């Protein structure tokens, strides 16, 4: 029984991990290439889910919803880039923080006006309905497994793009030394628009995929954003590989910690005390992990080449 429970929680951890990776990937590239801190990236995740709610209402088909929501997320991301973010690339981090914070305030409230404050949801596709039996009378939902697979496929695709294509090469060069890249005649602004739109789409995709599992509500992107920050800090800014490994690590540590920390404390504490201490410690685990990594590696586990 414990073995099965453990397997289920590992799957849940992987699921959180791939979602975090999809959000963190865009964020880390935007940091890496333009040294731009975008707090509004979590809002892209939320918008993805809300767009999916609307498109699912229109089409009634999950796969059509995914395609339409991704296209809309891309367009919205580019519009935001042109309207707001573009004007802050040359500003200091504090200005970027405030401006993107303004975007969050606007969009979180805007979503509340358009879609209402109540949590919404939409179902996953019929094909992925049902569960894979893990043991007698207990199964793991196929949709969640599909989500993990889709996330891993995205990670693989992203890795291929970044390591095997010309655009990927430019992105890596931009993360290592944007000034030099610009001096070599590459239009860094255009490169950044590509990176930005792509990142917005990835975050939107994470939102679309998360919709059938979590409730779709205003502010749902905020928690994910901060977890994505933890991922980036652990993985190293600008590093896709670091973001991937750190996302899985954070997903697993957080999920397993929440499931088993109370039981672990029960081994040497009174049950009532363990019920108090366990959840509190579990919610601190990933931050302790982050602090630990930073203590030994202030630039993260896999800093992009050329950055110190």
């Amino acid at each position, binding site marked *: 029984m414990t073995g099965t429970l453990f397997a289920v929680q590992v799957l849940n951890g992987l699921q959180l991990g791939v979602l975090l990776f999809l959000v963190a990937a865009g964020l880390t590239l935007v*940091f890496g290439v333009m*040294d731009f*801190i975008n707090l509004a990236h979590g809002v892209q995740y939320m918008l993805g889910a809300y767009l999916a709610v609307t498109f699912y209402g229109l089409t009634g088909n999950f796969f059509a919803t995914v395609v339409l929501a991704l296209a809309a997320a891309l367009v919205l991301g580019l519009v935001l880039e042109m309207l*707001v973010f573009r*004007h*802050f690339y040359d*500003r200091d*981090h*504090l*200005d970027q*923080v*405030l*401006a993107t*914070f*303004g*975007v*969050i*305030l*606007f*969009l*979180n*409230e*805007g979503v*509340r*006006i358009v879609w209402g404050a109540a949590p919404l949801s939409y179902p996953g596709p019929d094909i992925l309905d049902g569960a894979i039996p893990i043991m007698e009378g207990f199964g793991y939902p196929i949709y969640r497994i599909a989500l993990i697979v889709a996330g891993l496929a995205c990670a693989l695709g992203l890795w291929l793009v970044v390591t095997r294509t010309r655009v990927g090469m430019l992105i890596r060069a931009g993360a290592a030394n944007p000034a030099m890249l610009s001096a070599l005649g590459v239009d860094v602004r255009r490169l950044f628009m590509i990176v930005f739109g792509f990142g917005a789409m990835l975050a939107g995709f994470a939102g679309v995929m998360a919709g059938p599992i979590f409730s779709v509500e205003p502010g749902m992107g*905020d*928690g994910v954003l*901060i977890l994505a*920050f*933890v991922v*980036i*800090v652990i993985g190293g*800014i600008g590093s896709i590989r670091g973001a991937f490994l750190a996302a899985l690590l954070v997903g697993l540590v957080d999920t397993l910690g929440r499931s088993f920390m109370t039981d672990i404390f029960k081994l040497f504490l009174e049950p009532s005390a363990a*019920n*108090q201490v366990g*959840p*509190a410690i*579990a*919610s*601190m685990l990933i*931050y302790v992990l*982050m*602090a630990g990594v*930073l*203590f030994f590696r*202030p*630039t993260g586990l896999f800093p992009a080449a050329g950055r110190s």
Partner: protein
Amino acid sequence: MSENLTRGWVIAAVLLLAFAALPPLAEATGHSYLTVVASRVMIYAIAALSLDLILGYGAMVSFGHAAFIGIGAYAVGISAEHGLWEGTLTFPLAMAAAGLFALVTGAISLRTRGVYFIMITLAFGQMAYYTASSLSAYGGDDGLTIWGRSELFASPLLENEWSFYFFVLACLSLCWWFASRVVGSRFGRVIAGVRENRARMAAIGFDPYRHQLVAYVISGMIAGLAGALLANHSEFVSPAYMSWQRSGDLIIMVVLGGMGTLYGAVLGAVAYLALEDVLAGFTEHWRVIFGPLLILIVLYARGGIARAFRGEGRDG
């Protein structure tokens, strides 16, 4: 330099006198609720002052400042839950708890700079938030109601709205005076020096890390005091005090008022809370207006309100 200092003292005196005159005026004009509103404004002014110490003078963009407020508030709330109401004990306890948290998290965060520092302080703030949410013995997500206010030397003085107001005003004045002493001291000069050129400060023999860490702890302790006052003001504490939007609000206050002036932080707190009140009067969705407004302010009005009080073309 001395002109700047004088200007600071004059603005401080005018603002504090205005605060002191507010309760009688509010009473006379039949708006006595303003006293309650203004004590909340002063509490946030104290928190904004503490943030200006590290953000304005030290260029440390701490995005987890609300955690210190929350820890201060919880120190008072949890003490009350266990029957300890004596403010002369719980207020120092609140400051010590917030200072300790600042010491531990600052020791780690200050090893990094730039975007890393922003993200790490944000993450630590969120850690405090989630920890408070999971304290089921103290209300968890729902927060903790405090059945009364702190006592001062065993007397229920603070239960009276006026005496509470003037107690907060005294705290604000004291913090302001202390902060201006810190800024004007040799220590404050080192902090500002590190902001301008870290390598040079290190080269002439100052340890930037240790100075910044001390400033961070001082700032956290003052914010903890603001938290203890806030818990008394609302007779309630909840994890929402530590949410990252609260930290964002504090940064907005400091930037709106003008960084690195101290009086700017106080003006910013007044302006921000007044703006919130006015906009919320138009629509419950006031953030839809405030968000774009914030972007425009950052885009076109750097320097904040404090710039209006400064001479032409002056900086710092």
